[in-house]
């Protein structure tokens, strides 16, 4: 593997948490990527913002919590976390307590994130 240049990887998360397992699998991919010590950025947009609220208990449906996995991002030194503010607003989540201290971004910010990344994984 070429260690010279660090790559900037952006992972975009667009799935709601429990209706499909894809949201959980995407978070597994985020954590697996985080250990590679590259520049990793995560963006929650669309229905992906439903993964963020700390309210609720996924154990009631025998599922591992997406919010708890997201709350563990700092343990992986993953700090570049962005959240689509329009997506929160549209879903009435603008004042909800969220699992991670992410930076709110608008459409122009998100376009910039996509432009800056070397590689984008989209879930």
């Amino acid at each position, binding site marked *: *593997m070429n260690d010279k240049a660090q790559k900037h990887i952006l992972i975009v998360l667009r799935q709601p948490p429990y209706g499909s397992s894809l949201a959980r699998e995407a978070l597994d991919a985020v954590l697996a990527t985080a250990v590679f010590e590259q520049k990793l950025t995560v963006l929650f947009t669309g229905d992906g913002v439903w993964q963020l609220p700390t309210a609720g208990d996924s154990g009631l449906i025998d599922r591992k919590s997406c919010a708890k996995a997201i709350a563990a991002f700092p343990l992986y030194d993953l700090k570049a976390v962005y959240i689509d503010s329009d997506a929160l607003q549209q879903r009435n989540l603008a004042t909800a307590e969220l699992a991670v201290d992410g930076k709110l971004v608008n459409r122009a910010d998100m376009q910039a994130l996509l432009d800056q990344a070397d*590689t984008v994984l989209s879930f």
Partner: protein
Amino acid sequence: MKFSLLILGAPYSSQSVQSALRFAQAALAGGHEVLRVFFYHDAVNIANALITPPQDEPDLPREWAALAEQHDLDLVVCIASALKRGVLDEGEAKRYQRPAANLARGFEISGLGQLTEAALLSDRLVTFGP
């Protein structure tokens, strides 16, 4: 250019796997390299050797295997997703004492690190969604 592919959709239920196959064929025909193809989420089902499509429909597992053999491609199926969906190689079938193994020819079971490594080694990573 070095491409890697991330495929998420279930074969036949979703268009994901076939679109990715067509893309891989086009990229290779265009002289590009396909460094790795990573099957995740429901796409791991492509590696089920028991898939038996109707005769008048494409045989996707075998088409992927043929392309892989022709171009020495690295077809990787995520182990966690595969186990959950009942796609096992001999080793996993033995480990979990399952009645059979069903991993199709041409595919290899491995971990998520292979996806990240593919992203780092490729010029472009293209995702074929669910």
